[in-house]
C-alpha cells in the first residue's frame, strides 16, 4: 500500500516527534529567556505526549488486525512494486510498538524534567529539538522495514545523541566524552554499512524481510557462507558498539556521566537499547538458528562477560553517575543474554521446550528493557537532582544527602532495589524470565552466573543506599534543599510505574510476550 491518509495516521508517532522538532526549533528562534525556555519545554512535552497517545492507538489498531504487521511501502511509489528489487517500507509490528512506547515514554518525562534541570543553560532552543529528533529517530529505527530507512534513522539518532552528550560545550569533560563516543559510534555505523553492502550483494535487495527470504534460497554450505559469517561479525560489532557489549563499551562510562542528567537517562535507558533491538530484529529476520548455530552461543558468552565486567567495575566507582553507567553495562548483559538464548538452535532438548525457552528468554529480555528504562532512567534523574542541588557527583561528598531530600531518596531506593531484583518490583520479573528461559534451555551454568551476578550487584546498590542515606551527612550535603516539584514529578511518576508494573505485571508481560513472538516469527496464539 502506498502512503495515503490512513498511512499518515499510522506514521503519526514519527510525524509528531520529528515535525515537533521542526516546530520547537522554529519556536526557539522566537521565544527567548527563561520564560521562553519553559514554554519550549512544555511544547516538547506536549508533542511527546501526543506521540505516546498515537503509539498506544497503534497498539489497538494492531490488536484488531490480529497482530499482523502494518506495512507501508513508500518507494518506489504506487501500489505496484517488486520487493526483489528492494522496495523500502515502514514495518509496524507489535515489537516496534512495544519498543517505541518505551522510547517515547522516557522522552516525555525527560522533557518535563529538563524544564527545571536545564534552567541555567543557554541554547535550550537547540536542546529540545535535538531531544525530539533523538526520540523520533529511535521510533524510526524500530519502524524501519528496510535497510535504507534503518540507516537514515540510525544516523540521525547517532548525530543527535553526539550533540546532546556534548551539549555543555564550554566544559572539557563533555567534549572529551563526546569525542570518544563519536569516534567509536561512527566507526560502528560504517561497519554496519559495510556489512550491509555484502548482504545486499548476496541477496540483491535492501528490504529486511526479503533479505532473509533470499538468504534462505541460497544453497546451504556454499562459499557465500563465509561472506555471511563476516557480515554477521560486522553487524554484531557495529550494533554491539551502540548496545555497549563488554569489550566495545569503553565509551559508555565516559559519555553517560558527562551528558546532562536527563540525557544520561535517555542514553542509558533507551538509546543503547536500539543496538540490542537491532541485533534481535536482524537475527530474527536473517539468520535462523538452524543455519547459523554458533552465533547465539558466542553472543551469550559475550553477554555473560558484559555482566561480570560491569559488576566488577561498578564496585570501585566513586562517581555516582559513573557507577550507574557501569551498572547499565551489567543490565545490557542481561538483555543481550536473553536475546542470545532466542538465537540458539537448542537441538539437545525437546523442540517444544526449545521454543518455550527461546520465547521465554526473549520475553524476559524485552521486559528487562522496560524495567531498565524505568529504573535506570529514574536513578539518573535522581542523580541529576543531587547534582543540581549541591553540584557534585562524588559519592563522598553526597554522603547522607538522603536525609535532606526524602522523596528523591525514597524513589532512588526503590529504583536501586528494582534493579537489584527485589521481588515486588519490576526488575525482579524481567530477570526471573531470563533465568527461567536459560533453565528451560538446559543451561544451568548460565542460570547460576545470572543469579550470582544479580546477587553481586546488590552489593553496590546497597553500598550506594548506605552512603546516601545512613552515612553521617557531609558539609555539602547539609546545604541541599528540597528538589523542585517539576523534577520530582518525573521521578515520582516513574517510581509509581516501577511499583505498579511490579505489582500487576500481567498486561505488560503479555505485550512483551507478543513482541517476542513477533521477533522470533512464532505464531500468535
Amino acid at each position: 500500500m502506498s502512503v495515503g491518509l490512513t498511512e499518515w495516521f499510522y506514521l503519526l508517532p514519527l510525524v509528531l516527534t520529528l515535525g515537533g522538532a521542526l516546530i520547537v526549533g522554529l519556536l526557539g528562534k522566537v521565544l527567548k529567556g527563561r520564560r521562553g525556555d519553559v514554554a519550549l519545554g512544555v511544547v516538547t512535552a506536549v508533542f511527546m505526549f501526543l506521540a505516546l497517545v498515537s503509539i498506544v492507538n497503534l497498539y489497538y489498531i494492531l490488536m484488531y488486525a490480529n497482530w499482523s504487521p502494518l506495512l507501508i511501502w513508500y518507494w518506489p511509489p504506487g501500489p505496484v512494486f517488486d520487493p526483489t528489487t528492494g522496495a523500502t517500507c515502514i514495518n509496524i509490528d507489535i515489537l516496534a510498538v512495544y519498543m517505541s512506547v518505551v522510547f517515547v515514554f522516557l522522552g516525555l518525562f525527560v522533557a518535563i524534567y529538563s524544564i527545571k534541570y536545564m534552567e541555567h543553560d543557554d541554547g535550550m532552543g537547540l536542546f529540545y529539538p535535538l531531544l525530539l529528533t533523538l526520540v523520533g529517530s529511535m521510533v524510526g529505527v524500530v519502524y524501519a522495514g528496510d535497510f535504507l530507512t534503518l540507516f537514515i534513522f540510525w544516523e540521525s539518532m547517532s548525530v543527535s545523541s553526539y550533540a546532546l552528550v556534548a551539549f555543555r560545550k564550554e566544559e572539557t569533560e563533555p567534549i572529551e566524552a563526546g569525542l570518544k563516543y563519536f569516534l567509536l559510534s561512527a566507526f560502528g555505523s560504517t561497519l554496519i554499512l559495510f556489512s550491509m553492502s555484502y548482504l545486499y550483494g548476496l541477496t540483491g535487495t535492501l528490504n529486511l524481510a526479503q533479505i532473509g527470504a533470499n538468504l534462505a534460497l541460497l544453497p546451504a554450505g556454499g562459499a557465500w557462507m563465509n561472506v555471511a559469517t563476516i557480515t554477521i561479525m560486522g553487524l554484531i560489532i557495529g550494533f554491539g558498539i551502540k548496545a555497549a557489549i563488554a569489550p566495545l563499551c569503553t565509551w559508555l562510562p565516559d559519555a553517560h556521566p558527562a551528558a546532562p542528567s536527563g540525557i544520561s537517562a535517555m542514553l542509558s535507558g533507551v538509546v543503547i537499547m536500539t543496538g540490542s533491538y537491532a541485533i534481535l530484529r536482524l537475527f530474527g529476520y536473517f539468520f535462523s538458528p538452524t543455519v547459523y548455530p554458533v552465533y547465539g552461543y558466542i553472543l551469550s558468552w559475550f553477554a555473560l562477560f558484559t555482566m561480570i565486567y560491569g559488576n566488577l567495575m561498578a564496585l570501585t566507582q566513586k562517581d555516582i553517575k559513573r557507577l550507574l553507567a557501569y551498572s547499565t553495562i551489567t543490565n545490557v548483559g542481561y538483555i543481550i543474554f536473553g536475546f542470545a538464548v532466542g538465537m540458539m538452535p537448542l537441538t539437545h532438548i525437546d523442540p517444544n521446550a526449545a521454543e518455550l525457552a527461546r520465547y521465554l528468554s526473549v520475553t524476559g529480555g524485552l521486559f528487562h528493557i522496560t524495567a531498565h528504562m524505568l529504573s535506570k532512567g529514574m536513578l539518573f534523574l535522581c542523580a541529576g537532582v543531587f547534582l543540581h542541588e549541591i553540584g557534585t557527583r562524588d559519592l563522598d561528598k553526597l554522603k547522607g544527602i538522603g536525609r535532606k531530600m526524602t522523596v528523591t531518596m525514597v524513589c532512588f531506593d526503590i529504583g536501586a532495589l528494582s534493579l537489584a531484583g527485589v521481588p515486588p518490583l519490576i526488575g525482579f520479573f524481567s530477570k526471573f524470565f531470563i533465568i527461567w528461559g536459560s533453565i528451560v534451555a538446559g543451561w544451568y551454568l548460565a542460570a547460576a552466573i545470572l543469579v550470582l551476578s544479580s546477587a553481586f550487584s546488590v552489593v553496590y546498590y546497597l553500598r550506594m543506599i548506605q552512603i546516601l542515606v545512613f552515612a553521617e551527612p557531609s558539609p555539602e550535603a547539609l546545604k541541599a534543599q528540597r528538589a523542585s516539584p517539576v523534577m520530582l514529578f518525573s521521578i515520582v511518576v516513574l517510581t509509581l510505574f516501577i511499583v505498579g508494573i511490579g505489582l500487576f505485571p500481567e498486561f505488560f508481560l503479555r505485550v512483551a510476550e507478543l513482541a517476542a513472538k513477533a521477533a522470533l516469527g512464532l505464531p500468535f496464539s
Partner: protein
Amino acid sequence: MIPYGVPLEFFLITAVFLYAVGFYIMATKRNMIKFIIGLELLLDGAHLNFITFATAWPGFVIDPLAQSLVIISICIGGGVIAVGLAFVIRAYNLRGTLDIRKLNELRH
C-alpha cells in the same frame, strides 16, 4: 557480467582496501583530524561496495535503490563529519592540542 570491461572483483578489492586503510588510520594515528579522514575512508569503502553490487545485475540493469542509498549516505556522512570536526575544534580550543592521547582527563 563484466560492466565496461573491468571485472567486479577489482572494485570489491578496492573497497576492502579503502576500508582497511581507514581502519588502519583509526587504529594507529594520534591526530584527531586524521581520525576524521579515516572515518571518511571507511564510509567510502562501504559506498563503493554498494555501487559495485548495484551494477552486478543481469542485463546491465542498475539498481537505483542502492545508488539512492549511497547518495543519502554521502549526505549523512557529511553531517556526521561536520559534527566530528566541531568536536575537534572545541577540543583544540579547550586543550590546545590535536593529540587524542592527551585527552585523558576522563581516566579515573
